[in-house]
């Protein structure tokens, strides 16, 4: 009885909190963004110091157009960033998934590795960039190691938590119906863990994007991170911002893609 009662009461309350009309965000939020861009542009035109230190939206747009028509920008810099990112991210996801399943599924493995994982995870990733630089030089390996080390732990920890959280009643039932361990893992534990795993992978994606840019800014001969660091040395602010826009948009697109895949798989 009470259940039906709350059920009839709740919807109006939630409906009340919903936005009245959807266009408001577009008008208000988009309006604020446009306003800020206009103020920035006007300030840059009025004052050459602003123009020098902050560039201007029109200059950034022009730089983006120049980038998109520049063959080397794509074949050298974007490619270098994409390669380092993809390799490091794949290593992190595959390694994190594998070890996470192992640690979530086998208590012995978990208890053996947990303190070690805790210790390594407590280290701020950025602190190891100078060390990796010393170890691996500033080539592809260095970038892959930085990206993988930054994005490994979200996948590992979420996968482990997800596998551990698998419904014990379901596991017991499947086991008593004679399912093998492998089957239990594939049909019960992993599907149960999928939402958490995807959340971890999504977090790892953000870390990986930051990681590749950071690694290339710190030390490299090409890549979007190099473009940014190089532009900073020459105080070409419009190039810093334009390259950042390219990274941000690519990251957002990848994130959307991953979100779509996650919705597909976890439904």
């Amino acid at each position: 009885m009470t259940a039906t009662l709350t059920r009839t009461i709740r919807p109006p309350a939630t409906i009340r909190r919903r936005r009245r009309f959807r266009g408001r965000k577009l008008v208000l939020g988009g309006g604020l963004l446009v306003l800020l861009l206009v103020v920035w542009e006007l300030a840059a035109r009025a004052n050459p110091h602003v123009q020098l230190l902050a560039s201007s939206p029109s200059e950034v747009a022009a730089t983006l157009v120049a980038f998109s028509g520049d063959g080397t920008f794509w074949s050298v810099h974007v490619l270098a960033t994409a390669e380092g990112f993809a390799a490091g991210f794949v290593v992190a996801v595959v390694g994190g998934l594998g070890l996470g399943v192992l640690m979530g599924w086998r208590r012995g493995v978990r208890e053996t590795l947990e303190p070690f994982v805790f210790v390594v995870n407590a280290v701020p990733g950025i602190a190891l960039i100078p060390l990796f630089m010393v170890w691996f030089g500033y080539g592809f390996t260095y970038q892959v190691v930085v990206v993988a080390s930054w994005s490994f732990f979200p996948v590992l920890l979420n996968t482990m938590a997800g596998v551990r959280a698998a419904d014990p009643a379901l596991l017991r039932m499947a086991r008593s119906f004679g399912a093998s361990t492998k089957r239990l893992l594939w049909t019960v534990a992993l599907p149960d863990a999928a939402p958490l795993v995807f959340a971890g992978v999504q977090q790892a994606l953000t870390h990986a994007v930051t990681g590749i840019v950071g690694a290339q800014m710190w030390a490299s001969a090409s890549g979007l991170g190099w473009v940014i660091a190089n532009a900073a040395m020459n105080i070409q602010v419009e190039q810093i911002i334009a390259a950042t826009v390219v990274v941000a948009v690519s990251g957002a697109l990848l994130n959307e893609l991953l979100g779509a895949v996650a919705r597909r798989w976890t439904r």
Partner: protein
Amino acid sequence: MDTVRLLRGGGFLLVVLALWELLARSGWVDPVFTGSPSGVVTALGELVSDPEFWSVHASATAVGFLAGWSLAVVVGLPLGLFMGWYGPVRDLFEPLVMTFYSTPRIALVPLFVVWFGFGLPYKLVVVFLAAIFPVLLNMMAGVRSADAALVAMSRSFGASPVTVLRTVVLPASLPHALTGVRQAVAHGLTGVVVGEVFSAGTGLGYELNQAAQLFRTDRLFAIVVVLAVAAVAANEGMLLVERRLTGPRASTASRSPRSGSAARSSASRSA
């Protein structure tokens, strides 16, 4: 049971350390590049007994972190509250916030060097941008997670918006707010080291960088240990505060006024 766990976990850590030491001593790898546990312990001893390390570098990092983190909390909590509570405010700021949130902020670090040089204002901005989002987004989510039925009920009993906010919404959002503030500690610490590694004259990040360039790997690891200990200690401290203020239950609706004021005082304390 727990002994087995301790033996396994502790044993593995010891094995890793022993292997590392052996490798470094055997000459298979060059200890200049890998360091060794005994070397790291020695370097750590030198580091913590060096007054300059504390008075110049550790303090510079601490000040940069505290300045940026405090500002993130002071700006993030009220802004998150308003964005969670008022639809128009949320609609106004959300696109802007999300634009910056989805930008890899590390790419903007060189820009801040150009703008602010490499002193305290530079670190403050880098830390602020690293720490604001967990505070803001968690606070906003907390406010929005307030039980809609409770809000509707207290409204229909004639509570003013301020009363609803104080007695229903703030208590419900307190656990989220505290989680955000705690996450901001980790993000802020990473932020300050990022700032210092890329450009600084003092600080742990600067020291880290120096150690790497001079191939003083033992010292580098010692600084990493200091950073990791600081990060863990800060996180545990915040967890303690969190448990103190929210109690064992996640829902604090029944103790509303007290927890509500606690949320405000935690915001003002770090100012």
